[in-house]
């Protein structure tokens, strides 16, 4: 390149006619990057159209304007000076071109080939706008940072879990696993390399037992897309609960499964303690109560005549108290065992009509004493047997009919049984005092007595556990129990259902 005066004027028409020069000019004119040439004395010797379009660039060739406008954004001018000493620069410049418009440029200054070894005469500055690229880079960086943060948060959360967490893909590989897995399965002693990730089979091996095969279970979760819960697996001296859920990314695609492993040993120990507590409590509480009940009952039976009236009454009160206490202890024990799911239902096929007859006979004395009728209605229909626990069903009948007798002063208590698709429905209707609307919703809850607050409780009417126990039992046997209707002053009807026995022997 020469430094002829011809080049001094930008866009000069006085160009060489050499065809390559035309081409070069044309390229420089068309190039999107701004290119200029600055002389040592500060004069802008040449600037291409792209350069002139830069924000804040003056149309004349006075360099001062650059400093004030475009160049003022950075220490560019000093850098340009340095280029004359032979030190090129490359820098990114941000430029606020309007209130909300910021552009970013990549600016490069290179010296013209030095002459006479004393620096150069001209500096070529190339300005490339990189706003978009910069934005993209920033977006990407931001995005990656976000992902990384998410990942850190995610890993930190699953690592802080006390529950073992594993994600498996469809090909046996562990994708993510937290530390709790190792702790729960006692894997810390194994080779570190095995532990990292890799194959799920070493965990499968560890967990394999006669009753549990993890491999087939998680395969099942993925293939059949279903959630699997193993409530209790014995693992060495530990009890584990395992939950497996497929990871579905769309309606048709399952990419793996999540497995949660929970150590429930402590829970089991506590539960066992509770069990023991209940059976000991029941035994220890009932024995002295039985002695009180038994001895007072014998005094009543064999020595009543020898006692003064007051003492007889006192003995009677002690007897009634002991019976009431035994009932309370039994109710509490029933509730505890029902809530713990510890009651086993010995399902058999039996006639509920016969059972109801039995209960009616047993309650007849107390009903007759109150002059309340106690009757079975419509037994003409031939009814199938039910499949339920006979003793528990009797308890439910006893509770419901007993309640009705208790709260009825005039009229009677009437029982009816009818079929209702797949179930037998028992209705207990009374002409008692009825239950206020406001109290109806509380009926089947623990310790609730209709129409009573804590202080107005009628403690002679029991613990308020009867309906709650009946509900747990009826539901435990596959039936339902509910308040059919109740009108104050008119009466109440309770109903419950039990499934018809598959043996379907009809009651005649």
């Amino acid at each position, binding site marked *: 390149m020469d430094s002829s005066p011809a080049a001094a004027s930008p866009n000069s028409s006085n160009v060489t006619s050499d065809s390559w020069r035309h081409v070069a000019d044309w390229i420089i004119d068309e190039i999107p990057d701004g290119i200029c040439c600055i002389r040592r004395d500060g004069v802008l010797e040449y600037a291409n159209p792209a350069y002139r379009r830069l924000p804040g660039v003056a149309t004349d060739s006075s360099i001062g304007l650059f400093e004030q406008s475009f160049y003022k954004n950075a220490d560019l001018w000093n850098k340009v000076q340095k280029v004359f000493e032979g030190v090129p620069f490359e820098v990114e410049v941000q430029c606020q071109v309007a209130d909300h418009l910021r552009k970013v440029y990549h600016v490069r200054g290179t010296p013209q080939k030095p002459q006479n070894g004393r620096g150069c005469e001209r500096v070529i500055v190339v300005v490339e706008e990189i706003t978009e690229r910069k934005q993209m880079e920033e977006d990407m960086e931001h995005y990656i940072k976000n992902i990384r943060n998410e990942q850190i948060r995610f890993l930190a959360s699953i690592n802080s879990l006390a529950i073992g967490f594993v994600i498996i893909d469809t090909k046996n590989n562990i994708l993510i696993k937290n530390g709790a897995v190792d702790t729960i399965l006692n894997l810390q002693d194994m080779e570190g390399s095995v532990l990292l990730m890799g194959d799920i089979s070493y965990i499968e091996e560890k967990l394999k037992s006669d009753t549990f095969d993890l491999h087939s279970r998680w395969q099942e979760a993925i293939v059949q897309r279903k959630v699997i819960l193993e409530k209790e697996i014995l693992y060495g001296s530990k009890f584990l609960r395992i939950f497996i859920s497929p990871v579905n990314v769309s309606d048709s695609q399952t990419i793996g499964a999540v497995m949660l492993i929970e150590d429930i040993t402590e829970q089991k120990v506590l539960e066992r303690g509770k069990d023991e507590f209940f*059976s000991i409590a029941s035994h220890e509480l*009932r*024995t002295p109560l039985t002695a009180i009940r038994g001895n007072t009952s014998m005094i009543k039976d064999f020595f009543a005549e020898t006692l003064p009236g007051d003492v007889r009454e006192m003995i009677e009160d002690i007897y009634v108290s002991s019976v009431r206490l035994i009932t309370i202890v039994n109710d509490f024990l029933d509730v505890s065992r029902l809530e713990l799911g510890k009651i086993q239902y*010995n399902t058999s096929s039996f006639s509920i009509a016969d059972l109801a007859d039995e209960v009616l006979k047993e309650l007849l004395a107390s009903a007759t004493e109150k002059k309340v009728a106690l009757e079975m209605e419509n037994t003409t229909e031939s009814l199938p047997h039910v499949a339920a626990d006979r003793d528990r069903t009797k308890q439910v009948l006893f509770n419901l009919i007993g309640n009705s007798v208790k709260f009825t002063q005039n009229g009677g208590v009437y029982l009816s049984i009818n079929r209702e698709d797949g179930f037998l429905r028992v209705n207990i209707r009374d002409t008692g005092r009825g239950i206020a609307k406001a109290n109806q919703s509380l009926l089947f809850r623990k310790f609730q007595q209709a129409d009573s607050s804590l202080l107005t409780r009628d403690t002679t009417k029991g613990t308020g556990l009867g309906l709650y126990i009946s509900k747990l039992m009826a539901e435990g046997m596959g039936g339902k129990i509910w308040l059919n209707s109740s009108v104050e002053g008119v009466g109440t009807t309770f109903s419950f259902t039990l499934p018809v026995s598959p043996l379907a022997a009809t009651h005649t």
Partner: protein
Amino acid sequence: MGKILLIVEDDPLMQRMYEKIFKFAKLDVVTASDGEEGLEKARTGKPTLILLDIMMPKMNGLQVLDKLKADPETKNIPVIMLTNLAGEKDAETALVKGAVKYIVKSQHDPKSVVDIVLQILAAHSREDVPGS
């Protein structure tokens, strides 16, 4: 009639109570205070019927029941389990092992226990009659 009841019961409160009611009912009663003693008295005394508690020291009632039913000398003596344990599982186990009845003590007045015993004795002697 020479009917002797054996009551195997470790709790003196219960033992005395049942002893009394059976005496009131004019039945002869022999008592034992633990499982081993109970088994011993069942073998030597040849009681007509045994009332057997479950929770007892030395040998529990279910173990005693097993031994009684395994011994040809005692296996035909009817056994009524008398307990205050809550679990119906024990009741079932006892019946499977050969007990004729399972009575939860707190659910019965002594007199009704006597009634049950008399019923079983009556049924048992009816069964015995043709054989003897």
